[in-house]
């Protein structure tokens, strides 16, 4: 199980004390808002529409049950009894008071948590595949590499004042669940023909107002060279990245403006300059970090679980949930449980403190004390015996956590939007609720099959609309909310940016429009053809006709 090391422990304590002093100086007037803002942002504290918002880092989305219980405690004591799990595998609290924040950070530090690297123009906390260490298709757990990069990048003085924020994502599996191609740096583990493993290094992906797919700068980098090579990338970015215009400051713009070949040449030249002996990561250091992520003691079980098969026959609701919400585990007799935080008409990613405590209890009893937060805003129990799946489902049902829609039309990504966020230009959550109600019938969702509907309330794209199979972007048109629909995006290994289908819609029209798109797809698809592939084959025309021709 992931844990801090001794340095982190002391450092986080010191940081909390430091912030307490900074907040007191702000409250007393010794610091102006302009002086205080960067300090509070370095500790994850934003000012939003209704109050302050605290974004807490959850490295690799990995939580122990004790940590999840502490998140519930914080929600009850200092917020309004709930939290919002984000597309960065973090949690946000929406009703925080500045005067309470240092106490909250101290409560987080008690369970080795903090809010560092959740904001500001630094290397943000690294994200990984939420099924890391559990997925059947995985080559190796990507979290040790994420942790190596975190330990290297945390408060790295050279990279604390970058031109803009910087996000790294890592996957150890061929099926990319970490969206590595739309990050500033994406790392993908793969095998070469000789069977050795190495990292594909991709740079310059991103979403926001200028969405781009990352380009590969190295196809097969040995693990020990990762830190030195990424340092070379960071140096090229730090030197050439634009600081004159916030909207052109991300590394994707640099890669695009000078071209992938020139960028790559600059990185290679920078990398060449480095003295090899001192920059490779030692094997024992890699092993030390990997030990933090040692797999739990799995039992030797049969692949086939008679209890599990029987339960599916006895309980049709369980059978449906098992079909949609369980995923293949790398160890026989085990399964990955995906808990949907997307009940019909619910708020994507929100969980009450009671729900958090229940999930913590289930993790403690059935999943080696471990939970994960996924970037599509669900919670995962990564290591569950198939024999225990029924008991988990039965505990989830009364808590409204057993919606069997994982990966389906109801499993919508949505940012907080204008209901909470000061940057938003339109609301996201009501749109998501309307779509979720429209497709409330799970038979209909299963008939449609896998589809990713992603909603952002502004061009910053926290709701990942560019890479939704169906993306929805909320904008402001002369003071009114309106919504643009894009089709054909993907954040997986087949990554692409969606294309705008046509004129936008008023909020109350969006769910109907989505229904027309999906009805058209079902009519035109070939047997077994998922939405994304049907769209790529058909192009936008039939969908345009369905939406706009009649009007």
């Amino acid at each position, binding site marked *: 199980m992931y844990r801090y090391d001794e340095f982190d422990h002391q450092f986080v304590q010191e940081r909390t004390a430091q912030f307490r002093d900074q907040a007191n100086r*702000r*409250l*007393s*007037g010794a610091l102006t*808002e302009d002086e205080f803002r960067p300090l509070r942002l370095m500790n994850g504290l934003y*000012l*939003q*529409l*209704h*109050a*302050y918002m605290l974004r807490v880092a959850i490295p690799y989305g990995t939580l122990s049950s004790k940590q999840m219980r502490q998140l519930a405690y914080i929600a009850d004591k200092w917020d*309004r009894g709930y939290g919002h799990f984000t597309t960065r595998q973090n949690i946000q609290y929406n*009703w*925080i*008071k*500045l*005067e309470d924040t240092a106490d909250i950070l101290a409560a987080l530090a008690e369970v080795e948590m903090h809010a560092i690297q959740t904001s500001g123009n630094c290397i943000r906390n690294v994200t990984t595949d939420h099924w890391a260490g559990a997925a059947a298709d995985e080559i190796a757990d990507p979290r040790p590499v994420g942790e190596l990069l975190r330990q290297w990048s945390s408060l790295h003085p050279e990279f604390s004042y970058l031109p803009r924020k910087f996000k790294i994502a890592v996957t150890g599996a061929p099926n990319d669940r970490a969206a590595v191609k739309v990050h500033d740096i994406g790392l993908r583990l793969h095998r070469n023909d000789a069977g050795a493993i190495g990292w594909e290094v991709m740079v310059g992906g991103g979403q926001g107002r200028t969405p781009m797919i990352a380009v590969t700068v190295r196809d097969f980098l040995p693990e020990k060279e990762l830190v030195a090579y990424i340092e070379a990338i960071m140096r090229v970015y730090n030197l050439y990245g634009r600081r004159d215009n916030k909207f052109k400051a991300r590394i994707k713009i640099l890669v695009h403006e000078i071209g992938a070949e020139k960028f790559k040449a600059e990185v290679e030249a920078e990398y060449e300059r480095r003295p090899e002996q001192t920059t490779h990561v030692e094997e024992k250091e890699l092993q030390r970090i990997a030990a933090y992520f040692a797999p739990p003691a799995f039992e030797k079980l049969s692949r086939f679980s008679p209890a599990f098969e029987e339960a599916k026959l006895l309980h049709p609701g369980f059978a449906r949930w098992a079909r949609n919400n369980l995923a293949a585990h790398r160890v026989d007799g085990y399964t990955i449980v995906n808990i949907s935080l997307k009940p019909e*008409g619910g*708020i994507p990613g929100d969980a009450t403190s009671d729900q958090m405590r229940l999930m913590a209890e289930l993790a403690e009893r059935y999943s080696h004390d471990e939970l994960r937060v996924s970037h599509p805003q669900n919670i995962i129990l990564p290591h569950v015996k198939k024999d225990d799946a029924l008991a988990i489902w039965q505990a989830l049902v009364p808590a409204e956590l057993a919606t069997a829609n994982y990966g389906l039309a109801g499993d919508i990504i949505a940012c907080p939007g*204008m*209901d*909470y966020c000061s940057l*938003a230009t339109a*609301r996201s*959550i*009501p749109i998501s*609720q*309307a779509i979720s109600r429209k497709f409330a019938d799970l038979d209909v969702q299963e008939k449609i099959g896998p589809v990713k509907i992603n909603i952002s309330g502004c061009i910053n794209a926290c709701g990942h609309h560019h890479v939704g199979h169906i993306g929805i972007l909320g904008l402001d048109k002369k*003071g*009114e*909310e309106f919504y643009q629909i894009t089709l054909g995006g993907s954040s997986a290994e087949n990554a692409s940016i969606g294309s705008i289908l046509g004129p936008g819609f008023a909020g109350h029209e969006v769910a109907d429009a989505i229904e027309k798109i999906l009805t058209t797809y079902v009519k035109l698809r070939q047997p077994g053809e998922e939405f994304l592939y049907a769209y790529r084959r058909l192009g936008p025309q039939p969908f345009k006709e369905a939406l706009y021709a009649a009007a």
Partner: protein
Amino acid sequence: MSEVEKGQVMTANRLRDGEVVFLTRSGEWNEKIDEAVLALEPQATAALEARANEDVKATLVTGSYLFDAERVGGKIRALHMRERIRTLGPTVRLDLGKQAEGTGGAFAFKEA
């Protein structure tokens, strides 16, 4: 009832807790929009700005700005949805924010 006046309201977040507040006629900050001054002319908005700037300096509030609003039947309503959400609370959680605490404006959101 029939008369509609259009003007601007000065708002900010209270520094210590982030609560949304509005500048009143007596120069205090109040949580309820109905207590706010609706400035109808440039002179009045300038006075609100001067007062707000002082209170930002005095660390009472932060992030002050003016927004467009109207008075309908004696009650103030923000013209833009963003500001209506600030005066009431999230449209998707009617149990939270000013609307749930009796400090919301008069033009409440309806259940979806």
